[in-house]
């Protein structure tokens, strides 16, 4: 989890990833940011986030992203 | 409890519909053009038994007193001219008369600034209403619904916005926005006060099939001829509101109709004051060219054209004092005008 937060900070240092639960719904992250995050996650966690998983529910919070990563790793 | 709620809802629904109808009724009175003069003409028309000649045209044509005219020439003439009658309405009137009577002669009393082509719908409504007005209320309602269903469900209509708007009579009549609202309301109100019932006593039954369609008898030859003529007139610079290609097409239609129905047809430019052409300012010469052009247009189709301006005696027979403006004859001098035109037209139609 810390690894993920670190990574997210790299992309956007002005966002409170730890506590925010509606990063996408509130428009805090633009689609460009998500690209950056996906690229970083793919590399960092050795997973491949498919385009079809890019839905608000999976990126609204750091927790949700972590859940997605775990699911992809287990799969 | 449940029942009262149901009753309340039903009452509300009925009230809603009632309010809607009242609103439509008021709007109808506001917007639907008051065609009292046309209604009056049609009423008189329905009470006239023998007709074998008609005059059509706008208010300038009202200078012809048809009874006097008949007395002079021996024709059974009827004057169908009404204020601001456009050519399409003139044509409709001609078709209407021809559907009831064996018409032998027809004269279009023309001014160069004849009104714009009006929609056929508006005048249809009026005819329908005139016919209906002699029937009891419920028959009238049934008639209106029958007619509207027929039009609304027509193949080319049912999928369009018009299919709905047919049910709302004033929809056809408000092209002028609020311009005529005051006039319409005052006219209707004052008639109501007088207790007039215009259009009552119409005895004939109009067969819509007869006049409700364009004759559609254009041959290819007609079309080719018209193209040529229309091109020529379009090149002539003319003042606004003057006869243009669309009106000429109607004139051609009228000629075709008369030819097919063995009607002798003449176009006569009505008498006018000496300053008539001054109104056309820098276009004066062009309007005179137009007159010559019209002559060719009508003659080519086998009919007669006459511009009273070409008569050297016009302004001595009907001096300027007889007119209350550049083209309308005062009531008291109508006999003189009728007499004059009777002479001109008998000569023309010999």
């Amino acid at each position: 989890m810390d690894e993920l937060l670190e990574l997210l900070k790299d992309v956007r240092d002005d966002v409170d990833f730890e506590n925010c639960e509606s990063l996408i719904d509130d428009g805090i992250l633009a689609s460009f940011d998500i690209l950056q995050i996906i690229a970083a996650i793919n590399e960092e966690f050795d997973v491949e986030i498919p385009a079809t998983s890019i839905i608000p529910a999976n990126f609204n919070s750091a927790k949700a992203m972590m859940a997605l990563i775990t699911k992809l790793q287990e799969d | 409890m449940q029942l009262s709620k149901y009753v309340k809802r039903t009452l509300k629904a009925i009230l809603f519909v009632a309010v809607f109808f009242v609103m439509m009724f008021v709007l109808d009175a506001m917007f639907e053009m008051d065609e009292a003069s046309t209604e009056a003409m049609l009423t008189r028309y329905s009470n006239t038994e023998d007709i074998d000649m008609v005059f059509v045209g706008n208010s300038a044509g009202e200078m012809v007193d048809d009874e006097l005219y008949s007395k002079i020439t021996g024709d059974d003439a009827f004057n169908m001219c009404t204020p601001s009658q456009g050519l399409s309405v003139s044509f409709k009137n001609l078709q209407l008369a021809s559907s009831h009577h064996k018409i032998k002669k027809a004269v279009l009393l023309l001014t160069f600034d004849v009104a714009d082509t009006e929609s056929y719908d508006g005048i249809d409504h009026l005819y329908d209403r005139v016919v209906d007005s002699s029937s009891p209320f419920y028959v009238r309602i049934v008639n209106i619904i029958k007619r509207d269903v027929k039009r609304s469900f027509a193949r080319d209509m049912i999928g369009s916005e018009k299919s709905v708007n047919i049910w709302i009579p004033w929809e056809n009549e408000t092209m002028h926005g609020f311009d005529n609202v005051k006039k319409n309301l005052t006219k209707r109100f004052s008639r109501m006060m007088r207790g007039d019932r215009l259009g009552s006593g119409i005895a004939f039954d109009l067969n819509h099939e007869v006049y409700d369609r364009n004759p559609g008898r254009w041959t290819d030859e007609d079309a080719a001829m018209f193209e040529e003529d229309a091109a020529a007139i379009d090149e002539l610079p003319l003042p606004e509101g003057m006869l243009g290609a669309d009106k000429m097409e109607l004139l051609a239609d009228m000629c075709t109709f008369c030819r097919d129905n063995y009607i002798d047809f003449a176009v006569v430019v009505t008498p006018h004051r000496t300053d008539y052409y001054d109104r056309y300012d820098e276009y004066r010469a062009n309007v005179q060219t137009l007159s010559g052009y019209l002559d060719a247009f009508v003659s080519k189709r086998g009919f007669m054209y006459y511009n009273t301006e070409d008569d050297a005696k016009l302004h001595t027979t009907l001096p300027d004092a007889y007119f209350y403006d550049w083209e309308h004859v005062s009531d008291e001098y109508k006999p003189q005008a009728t007499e004059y035109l009777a002479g001109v037209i008998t000569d023309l139609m010999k």
Partner: protein
Amino acid sequence: MAFYSVAFFGFVLLFIILHDLVGEISPKNQWIVRLLAGLSFFVFLSGVRIVFVLVSALSVWDGARIIHKYDLKNKEMRKREGLSKDEKKAIKEKGQRAKRTYLLSIAGFNLLLLILVKYYLPVANHPIALPIGISFYTLMAVSYIVDVYGSKYEPEGNFVKVLLYLCWFPQLIQGPINRFDTVKDDLFSHHRLHAPDMRYAFYLFLFGAVKKYAIADLLAPIVNAALNNDSAAYPGSFALFGALMFAVQQYADFSGGIDMSIAVSLLFGVKMNENFRQPYFSTSLAQFWRRWHMTLGSWMRDYVFYPFVTLKPIADLNKAVSKRFGNHAGRSLIGGISNILVFALVGLWHGPEKHFLFWGLYNGIIIAASDALSPAFSKINTLLHIDPDGKGMYVFRIVRTFLIITFAGFFDVIGPVSVGIKCFINTAFHFMPSVGAGMIAQLFADGVTSVPAVVTAAVATVILIINSVSKERGRSPREYVCAQKFYVRWIICFSLIMILLYSFTVSSGIRGFMYAAF
């Protein structure tokens, strides 16, 4: 067929009665009435060309099932005992490849069908009448199969249910491009006539009709007179005036039509996807595209943008550039390229003409550029001591975005691209306001428009603006109206009816929906 017509009203009334009757007798099968409505609407408008939608539905229905089965089998195989991690991975990858091939062929087939009838045949001079709604339902079909591929939801087992999803009639004229998972519950379940919903649907339809007939159709002659193939010769002020009118017209036309579609669908209990969220209050062009034609925008985002940027070579490029030139460079480059690609497609989706492609590129390039330059902008803001979140800046951004959209009208409406470009130049260098004013006055003299027409459109536009502002402030005009006493509601209702009816009488001609042609 117009929504406002005896034919459509009759059609809807007939099916509502049938819908409700069947709903009472056999709630489980009520959706079949919806299917019948969709199919008869299709046949009514497109005749035998219904085979197009049948083929599309069949292909994605079957394709989705096969993909899903493949998935399950693959998972089974991986669960077998005694497999090493690498072996598992190999099986997974093999399965992925096969799945992807299948997906691409099915989605490709549907898109090719669209390309064939919409682009290839017209360009090859064999135009055929488009099957109704093909531009919309093809995208819906593709979204369905891609979602199943991505395991977003299970495939639908019943073919005719997939068919209903594609040919649900209110969406056929001009969208919205619905998603299977958001409409399926409504589409296949039982609905009773529900008074508040009916009332809302009635108001929505009426309001949509006012937008369409009292605004869009009354402004259309003005737009056509100002933006056409001769516009290169007009002064910039006149062209700009036309573009401003077009901005109002296109919103009123499209959102009005969508309102009517959504309202009709609601009568059958089906809530379709929203397509607009006060787009002219957007503070940037990118935001505008998230609030205008939202279902197309989100389709492009989910099925073009994301798949494109997550492609291996693109992701690698992103990584390389980011490492070398910093994060911002990476996202600017990749995001920019993808955006331009997406908007080129959005442009082409509107039609095979070159000016649509230009219009798309105009949008894509501005969005890409504004993102690339955003650090520069914030630097300028800091330098000039501008508060980027202040009220003034907010208004400035809205106006700026609106102007950018307005200028896009030059490419959207005008056929030849060169004329559109000339209009830009004229707006900048040959503005000539007095000549433009004279030309506007001439529109009245020539009878292109009239004072009553303009006044009617203006009144309706004011109502539209009030509605939008209150929505933008988080209020719900609909709830406000519905909560009023009945006579207040009636006054509102009759006023709208009046404006609508009056607009017909001053309109010089009724036009079809702009988006119905796509």
